């Protein structure tokens, strides 16, 4: 637990990272919701209520995307900062197992990321209910599925970024994973000729949890398959990162 807290401390003290993380999660959701409230207040005829089910979906999809970017930023930093700052060897000579030095990065980064995503999600729920007006408020089941979707997107990418950052610099990790999530996977998913092989794509598995997506947007798979695919992606990246951390020269 002391090592996990130490990992979180290393991340929390990075002002730039923390400011951007708050902006990308809580900041964006709160700002967009506030703008919708103001627009509705100023001109209710042209702008509907800020809350309700459809606005909630829009907010959580934005949060899923930006929360993932935040997860990649935090994960890439958590996975690379010891080596980048030349401190890794000083941790190795404490006698701690290298695998432990790697493993604590995941909960350490999670402690930093999770509150931001949860607060942003809570803001989205609050606006959805408080400013629903005459629109239907989101159901409990929708809130639950959106929550799983946002969380799965962020957590899988956090673990992938931490594992990947054991091999390459944070900048490369950030560039590659953002490109993978925003462009490459969507292109691959659109290739119907790939057939059921598309089930192996992490974004396809995550989108299984996206409520209300049309069948044309998603690759059909069972929930169990989606969970296995996501666990496999997280496991492969974290396993590879751990393997390299235990073998690299310090």
């Amino acid at each position, binding site marked *: 637990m*002391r*090592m996990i*807290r*130490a990992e979180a*401390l*290393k991340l929390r*003290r*990075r*002002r730039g990272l923390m400011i951007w993380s708050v902006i990308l999660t809580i900041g964006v959701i709160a700002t967009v919701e506030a703008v919708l409230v103001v627009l509705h207040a100023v001109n209710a005829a042209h702008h509907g209520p800020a809350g309700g089910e459809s606005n909630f979906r829009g907010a959580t999809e934005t949060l899923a995307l930006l929360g993932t970017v935040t997860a990649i930023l935090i994960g890439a930093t958590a996975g690379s*900062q010891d080596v980048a*700052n*030349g*401190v890794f*060897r*000083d*941790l*190795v*000579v*404490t*006698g*701690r*197992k290298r695998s432990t*030095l790697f493993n604590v990065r995941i909960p350490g980064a999670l402690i930093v990321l999770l509150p931001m995503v949860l607060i942003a999600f809570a803001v989205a729920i609050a606006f959805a209910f408080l400013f629903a007006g005459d629109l239907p408020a989101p159901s409990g089941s929708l809130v639950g599925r959106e929550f799983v979707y946002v969380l799965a997107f962020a957590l899988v990418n956090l673990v992938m970024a931490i594992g990947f950052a054991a091999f390459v610099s944070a900048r490369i990790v950030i560039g590659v994973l953002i490109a993978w999530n925003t462009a490459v996977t969507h292109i691959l998913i659109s290739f119907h000729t790939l057939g059921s092989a598309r089930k192996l794509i992490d974004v396809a598995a995550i989108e299984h949890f996206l409520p209300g997506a049309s069948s044309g947007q998603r690759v059909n798979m069972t929930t169990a398959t989606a969970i296995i695919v996501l666990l496999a992606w997280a496991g492969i990246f974290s396993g590879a990162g751990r393997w390299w951390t235990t073998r690299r*020269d*310090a």
Partner: protein
Amino acid sequence: METVIETHALTKKFGARIAVNGVDLTVPAGVAFGFLGPNGAGKTTMIRTLLGLTQPTSGDVALLGLPQPAKRAEALARVGAIVEEPKFHPHLTGRENLKIVAAARDRAAEGRIADSLERVGLAHRADDRVKTYSLGMRQRLGIARCLLADPALLILDEPMNGLDPAGILEMRRLIRAFVDEGRTVFLSSHLLDEVEKTCDQVAIVDLGVVVVQGAVGEIAAQGDPTLLIEIDDPAAARNVLGGEPRVTHVEEEGASSLRLTLGDGLVPAEINRALVNAGVAVSRLEPARATLEETFLTITSRLEDHE
């Protein structure tokens, strides 16, 4: 005597290049041990291999009597080390950097943070970010980090690097204080003078091979005797000395002084007699104390290259 570091036939290769070549090293407990060698001799690779930062190609290592890597965690729990330049997270304060490492050590380590900072004279800057520290302050913070382990053995790689004269003096005092407390300090250096002033024992390494090891005084005495003479006519004196084959080396030591290296049983009185007989006035004739530097230059390959 108890040993804190023991290696047998320790070898580390990088491809075809041999960085550490079959090293047998024994470091006794409770001394300052200098690991002396020119840049590129393999000192840092040896230290990295001792600490398990890189895997040896072959050979055995024991730290604090515990075989490595089998008892690695047990041994390193009582070892503090600075490898190359001490590095820290620059965005964290000195105290926070120590907290990070203390978290990876035993529970008592966190309680040692304040004392360690006080010991190295950094208590007043402990809450400043490390990126504002000078190199000397980072060296001291590195020592504080070592002290978190309450180490029986400190391994310091070139600890005097980048320090000003006052910093070097302070570091020397710290090292001697650690030895007085019963700790062992293993320090690598290419600074002969510092090793001679700081260490009790020394191993001289070159091209990955430990050439000699033992007490500093004993090793320094291994070189040929040298003689410092002050004369009225250095040119004439050189002529006289040139005719004596047992004078193996002559070099100028100022306008009217020469330093001679005597070989094959030649004694100072014979030099004096030869010079006086040739009409050279000798105003001073002093057997010079052999220094570690002379021994070092004699036995390392650098001297061979120079010749």
